[in-house]
């Protein structure tokens, strides 16, 4: 593993560090409140794991159109021009890129075709796991690849997990309150000692 990949994965190192810290606290600490804090750190590390994987360099919002990603062809050029973002415009401006890819473009339709391919590349980058469209829209890709896209799904999942975590913490604290009322202590050793003697 080179230094670069090591540093590139720094988010994951933090995740593992937090995870092990939390886990260690849960195992090693006898104080019930500290155990719950450890449990919280442990859960938080998972939130970070999900959020990290939600960041996609060069990703784009997954807009699925009905005709399998080529729906934009039905629109007129002017409309497309509005819809396409600056990246696609960039592709159009870099007219040199057309030569290789836009074989089907007629003379009159060259402008339109350029936009279309731009749109296609835009649509084809639907979802980060699709290969980035090559060829014509290379410039567009350059622009897109600089964008760090945040996949909303992991964030939404983590909102749910945070709620679960809060519920768990609240319940655990409520139990600790009851334990304190019954035993007068929140040290696990002392509680077990009292149980043995009773």
């Amino acid at each position, binding site marked *: 593993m080179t230094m670069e990949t090591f540093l590139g994965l720094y988010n994951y190192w933090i995740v593992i560090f937090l995870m092990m810290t939390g886990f260690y606290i849960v195992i090693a600490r006898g104080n019930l409140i500290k155990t719950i804090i450890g449990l919280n750190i442990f859960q938080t590390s998972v939130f970070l*794991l999900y959020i990290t994987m939600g960041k996609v360099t060069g990703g784009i919002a997954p807009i699925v159109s009905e005709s399998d990603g080529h729906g934009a062809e039905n629109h007129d050029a002017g409309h497309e021009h509005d819809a396409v973002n600056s990246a696609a415009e960039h592709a159009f401006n870099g007219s040199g890129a057309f030569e290789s890819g836009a074989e089907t473009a007629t003379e009159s339709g060259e402008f339109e075709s350029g936009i279309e391919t731009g749109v296609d590349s835009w649509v084809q980058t639907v979802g980060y796991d699709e290969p980035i469209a090559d060829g014509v829209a290379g410039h567009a890709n350059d622009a897109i690849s600089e964008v760090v896209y945040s996949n909303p*799904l992991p964030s939404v999942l983590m909102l749910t997990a945070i709620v679960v975590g809060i519920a768990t913490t609240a319940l655990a604290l409520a139990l600790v309150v009851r*334990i304190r009322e019954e035993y007068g202590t929140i040290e696990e050793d002392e509680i077990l000692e009292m149980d043995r003697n009773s």
Partner: protein
Amino acid sequence: MIEQHLPILLIALPLLAAPLIVLLGGRRRAYILALTVCWCVFGIAVAVMSRVLGTGPISYELGGWPSPYGIVYVVDYLSAFVMLFVSGIGAIVLTYAPASINREIPLSKHYLFCATYLLCLTGLLGMCITGDLFNVFVFLEISSLSSYALISLGKTRRAPMAALQYLILGTIGATFFLIGIGLLYQMTGTLNMADIASRLESVDGSKTKLVAFAFMTVGLCVKMAVFPLHTWLPNAYTYAPSVVTCFIAATATKVSVYAFIRLVFGIFTPHFAFEEMPLGDALMIFSLVGIFVASTAAIYQTNIKRLLAWSSVAQLGYMLLGISMANVGGLSAGIVHMFNHALIKGGLFMVVGCFVLQIGSVKLEDLRGAGKTMPLTSFAWVIGGLGLIGIPMTAGFVSKWLLLTSAVGAGLWPVGIFMLLSSLLAVVYVWRVVEILYFSEPSKLAEKATEAPIQMLIPMYVVIGATIVFGCWTEFSIGIAHEAAVSLVGSVTSGGTP
């Protein structure tokens, strides 16, 4: 019209009823509403089961969103079967409950008990029905959180401590499961189980897959209380109110076993789990060791609830033993044992609930001679105990026989011998209680005791009777378990059904 929406009603009904009960309040009202909902849910589960038997698996798209994008609920043989007995046990236990909870749970908390009970049921059913992996986690947490709360309702001061210990281990298990889901999502970009299964095929030899598998297996093993990770179970079962123990002992670990089966056979495929990974050997060793250690521990208990709790750990070993064989025979034996053990353990804990109500103690020495003053309850223990040992004509025999034949069929003679030896241990701990009940001088408490009220005896005998019925009439349980096992093991080539 409504028939199409039965799968979602199964979840929505108890989920909506729970907050409604809290809002309404009132002890009687809450109980009647909860009971009605439980029986309705059981009725829906029966209807869904009959539809699955008639027309094959049902797939329900939530909100009409098509399957890989939206959340889908899938009811096939296995999930319909598990939901059927979970909702059945849920309804019967709640019918049995009033007298017992009057004694064991403060009156002011009854409506909260009813609401939490329904939430727990929702979570368990949701884990069975959903075809979305993250949904499994959410439902797992719903059922777990409500079961922690239910356990902490116990009267002794040890109940909150037992609940907290379960909470800590359970949360670690669930978080492990969540990490696994995250890694799977990272590899496949989807949460739909069937979709993950089909995409995972192309990810071979990846370390991420291995790590995800390890995290999810360990996480579920905590929830299943597989032998070395079972430490939360004896205390939780012992100190929870009797009714809660009946319900949780009969359903919660079984549903985790169900989720495990889905994970191994539906998502990771048996080829990966059993051939590339040594899951089969590992499970077999842990379950055999677990059966022996837990059965031996059960023999030395002086508390009847703790005795049954240890026996639960042992019985869970038999289910995993079936799964570890990874063939149709073993898997269907494991599935049938889930069902049979749910009935047997549910019934036996109901017997204990009657003893607690009438004698007021769970110590074996206080139960001495209860056979004379509580003949019907004691007799139910004998029948349930025979089922636990696996005497012919009881449900326990059916699954153990299936397990034995498939072990021998697979050439695993030592496993067969171990199983027979371990059944002898079960004879010892069941007989110990029988001897105390029938052949000892009555203790002071047992002498004064009277027979349990009829409202408790009837549900108890329904469950205990069911162990005899399903011991003799095996077509239903074995038939469905076989269908389920065939579709799971046979799904190796097709990439798995959700």
